[in-house]
C-alpha cells in the first residue's frame, strides 16, 4: 500500500565484481574492527597483521583479475579502457586500476613496517595507550604491561580504501567521501607514535586542523562548480565547460578552491607547510605510508579532476599550475638544504618531488596513439609515483633502524659515520638518496626523464629547465648526507643500527630492488602505465 505516487524508483545496479578490490579492502578493515573488539589481546597483533596482509594480497589479485578482464570501452580510440561503475560514482578505468594495484603493493610494504616489533623491543612503534597522557604513571604502566594499539592495522586499511576510492571517484561527492575516509585515519595514525609523543600529537593536531581547512575549501570549491555545472559528475562538468560562453566566475572560483584542496594533499607549495611537521612527528612507518600512498592517490585524483572534469578550462588553470610548480620545486629544494633532521629533510624532498610531478601535470600532454614510445603526462606521473614511492618507503624504513637510547636518531649529526657502523644500511640509504637526486641507473633518473619529456612535449619547456636546475640544487643536499654518512667521523657515541626483524629488512630490500630495477629496466612498468591508457570519461 503506497500513498505516495512514488516516482518510478530504479534500483541501482552495482557491478560487485568490478568493485571487488575496494569492497575487499573495506571489508577487511571492518573485520579488523571486529577482531579488535572481540579477539583476546594476546592474539590481536598476529590476527590483525595477517588479516591486513592477506586482505591486501587478495585485493591485489582481484585488481589484476578485474584489469585483465576489463573490455576496452566503446569510446575506443581515446586510449581508455574500463568503464564507469556504481551509477557513475566510480570510474574503474585503466589509470584507476593501475593506481589501485600500486597502492595495494605499496601499502603491503608499509604494513610490514607498521608490523615491525623488534626495533622497539617486542612492541610496535605505536603508542601503547593513546589516551594516557605523555609522561604519566598510566602511560608507564601501559608500557610495562606491553599494551599496544593494534587498531593501527584497520586504520591503515581504511586509509588505503579511502585512497583507492579517492583515486577512482568519478563525481565530486564520491571524491570528497574518499578524501575524508583516507584523511581521518591518517590524522589519527599521525598521533600514535610510541616515542616523542608530544611532537607526534602536535603533528596530528596540525595535520587535522589544516586538513580540515583544506577539506572545507575543497567542498566549497565543489559547491561552486556545482553551481556552475549543475552536476557533480565529471562528464557533466566537462560538458558544461565546453558549452560555456566566456569566463565564468563561479567556475574559476570553484576550480581554484578545489585546486587548493587537492594541492594541499599532494603537498605543493604554498600549501605545503604541514608536510615537514607531520612527516617529522608521525610514526616513521606512517610517514613512509603517507609519502608514498597519499601522494599517489592525491595525484591520481588531481589529474582526474583537472583532466577529465576541468580539461576544457585548461587555459584557465594551466598558468597557475606553472607558477605552483615553480614555487614548489624552489621551496622544496632550497629549504631542504638548511634542514638538520632527516625526516624533515625527506619531507622537503617530497615537496620538491611534488614540484617535478607538477611540471608534467602542467604540460598536460595527451600523447598520441601513433607514437607508441611516447608517454602522456598521466602515464609519466603514474610511473614517477611508483618509482618515488618505493624509494621513499625504503628511505623511511632505513630511518627506523638508525637509533639511539631515546628511539630513532633523526638528527643529521647522529648520522655521521653511519657508513662505518653499518655499510649495508648506509649503502641502501645512499641508493635511495641517489635515486631522489635523479642519478642515472636509479629509478629517480628514469622517472624524472619520463616526467620532463611529457612536460616538454606538452610545451612546458621553461618548467623543465627550472626543474633541471632545481634537481641540481636538490642533488647537493642528497649528496651532502651521503658524504656525511661515509666520509665523516661519528660524533660522540655515534649512531647504532639496530638489527630489525625480517619485516623491515624486507621493506628495505624491496625498496632497493625496485629502485635499481626501475632504473635499469624501466620498460615493463612504463609499458604497464602506458597500457593503463587514459582516464575514461
Amino acid at each position, binding site marked *: 500500500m503506497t500513498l505516495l505516487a512514488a516516482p518510478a524508483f530504479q534500483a541501482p545496479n552495482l557491478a560487485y565484481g568490478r568493485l571487488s578490490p575496494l569492497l575487499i579492502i573495506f571489508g577487511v578493515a571492518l573485520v579488523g574492527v571486529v577482531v579488535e573488539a*572481540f579477539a583476546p589481546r594476546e592474539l590481536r597483533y598476529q590476527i590483525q597483521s595477517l588479516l591486513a596482509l592477506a586482505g591486501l594480497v587478495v585485493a591485489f589479485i582481484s585488481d589484476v583479475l578485474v584489469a585483465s578482464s576489463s573490455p576496452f570501452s566503446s569510446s575506443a580510440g581515446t586510449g581508455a579502457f574500463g568503464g564507469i561503475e556504481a551509477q557513475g560514482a566510480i570510474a574503474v578505468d585503466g589509470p584507476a586500476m593501475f593506481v589501485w594495484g600500486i597502492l595495494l603493493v605499496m601499502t603491503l610494504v608499509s604494513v610490514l613496517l607498521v608490523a615491525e616489533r623488534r626495533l622497539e623491543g617486542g612492541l610496535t612503534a605505536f603508542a601503547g595507550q593513546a589516551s594516557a597522557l605523555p609522561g604519566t604513571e598510566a602511560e608507564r604502566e601501559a608500557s610495562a604491561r606491553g599494551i599496544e594499539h593494534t587498531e593501527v592495522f584497520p586504520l591503515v586499511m581504511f586509509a588505503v580504501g579511502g585512497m583507492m576510492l579517492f583515486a577512482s571517484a568519478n563525481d565530486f561527492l564520491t571524491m570528497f567521501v574518499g578524501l575524508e575516509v583516507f584523511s581521518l585515519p591518517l590524522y589519527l595514525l599521525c598521533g600514535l607514535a610510541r616515542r616523542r609523543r608530544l611532537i607526534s600529537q602536535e603533528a596530528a593536531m596540525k595535520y587535522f586542523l589544516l586538513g580540515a581547512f583544506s577539506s572545507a575549501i575543497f567542498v566549497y570549491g565543489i559547491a561552486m562548480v556545482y553551481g556552475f555545472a549543475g552536476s557533480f559528475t565529471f562528464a557533466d562538468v566537462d560538458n558544461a565547460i565546453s558549452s560555456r560562453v566566456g569566463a565564468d566566475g563561479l567556475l574559476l572560483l570553484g576550480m581554484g578552491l578545489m585546486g587548493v584542496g587537492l594541492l594541499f594533499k599532494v603537498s605543493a607549495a604554498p600549501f605545503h607547510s604541514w608536510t615537514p611537521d607531520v612527516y617529522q612527528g608521525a610514526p616513521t612507518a606512517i610517514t613512509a605510508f603517507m609519502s608514498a600512498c597519499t601522494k599517489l592517490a592525491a595525484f591520481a585524483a588531481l589529474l582526474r579532476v583537472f583532466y577529465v572534469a576541468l580539461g576544457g578550462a585548461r587555459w584557465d588553470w594551466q598558468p597557475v599550475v606553472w607558477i605552483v610548480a615553480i614555487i614548489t620545486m624552489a621551496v622544496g629544494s632550497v629549504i631542504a638544504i638548511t634542514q638538520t633532521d632527516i625526516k624533515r629533510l625527506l619531507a622537503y624532498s617530497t615537496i620538491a618531488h611534488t614540484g617535478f610531478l607538477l611540471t608534467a601535470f602542467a604540460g598536460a600532454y595527451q600523447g598520441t596513439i601513433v607514437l607508441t614510445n611516447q608517454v602522456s603526462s598521466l602515464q609519466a606521473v603514474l610511473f614517477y609515483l611508483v618509482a618515488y614511492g618505493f624509494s621513499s618507503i625504503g628511505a623511511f624504513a632505513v630511518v627506523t633502524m638508525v637509533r639511539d637510547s631515546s628511539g630513532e636518531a633523526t638528527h643529521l649529526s647522529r648520522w655521521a659515520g653511519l657508513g662505518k657502523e653499518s655499510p649495508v644500511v648506509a649503502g641502501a640509504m645512499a641508493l635511495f638518496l641517489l635515486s631522489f637526486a635523479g642519478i642515472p641507473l636509479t629509478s629517480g633518473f628514469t622517472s624524472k626523464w619520463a616526467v620532463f619529456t611529457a612536460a616538454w612535449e606538452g610545451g612546458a619547456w621553461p618548467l623543465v629547465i627550472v626543474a633541471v636546475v632545481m634537481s641540481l640544487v636538490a642533488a647537493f643536499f642528497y649528496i651532502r648526507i651521503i658524504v656525511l654518512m661515509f666520509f665523516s667521523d661519528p660524533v660522540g657515541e655515534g649512531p647504532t643500527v639496530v638489527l630489525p626483524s625480517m619485516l623491515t629488512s624486507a621493506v628495505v630490500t624491496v625498496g632497493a630492488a625496485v629502485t635499481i630495477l626501475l632504473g635499469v629496466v624501466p620498460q615493463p612498468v612504463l609499458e604497464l602505465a602506458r597500457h593503463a591508457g587514459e582516464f575514461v570519461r
Partner: protein
Amino acid sequence: MNLYLPIVFLGILAAAFAVFSVVASSMLGPRRYNRAKLDSYECGIQPTPQPVGGGRFPVKYYITAMMFIVFDIEIIFLYPWAVYFDSMKTFGLIEMVLFIATVFVAYAYVWRRGGLEWE
C-alpha cells in the same frame, strides 16, 4: 495555501503567547531585593564558583554525543529506505543490512571498549 505556512503561524502564536506571559509576569510580580536570593542555589552552602569557560565534563558525554550522531545519521538513511522499500525489495534489504552491519561493527567496538559504561 502552502503546507508549511500554518506551522509558521502556529510558531508565531506560541511565541507571542510566551513573550507576552514573560513580560506580563515581570510587570505583575513583586520585586523585593535580597542579595542572598540572587545567589546560585546550592541548598544553603556557599555556591561553588563556576570555572571559566564551563570547566571540564566527563568524556563520556562526548562519546555519547558522537554515538548519537552516528545513529541519527543511520536513522536518516533508514527513513527514505523504509518509505521506498516496496520499490527496492530484496536489493534494498541486502544493501540496508550491509549498512546496518557496518554501523553495528563500530557500535560493537565501542561497546567492548567500555564506551557505553557509566559509573
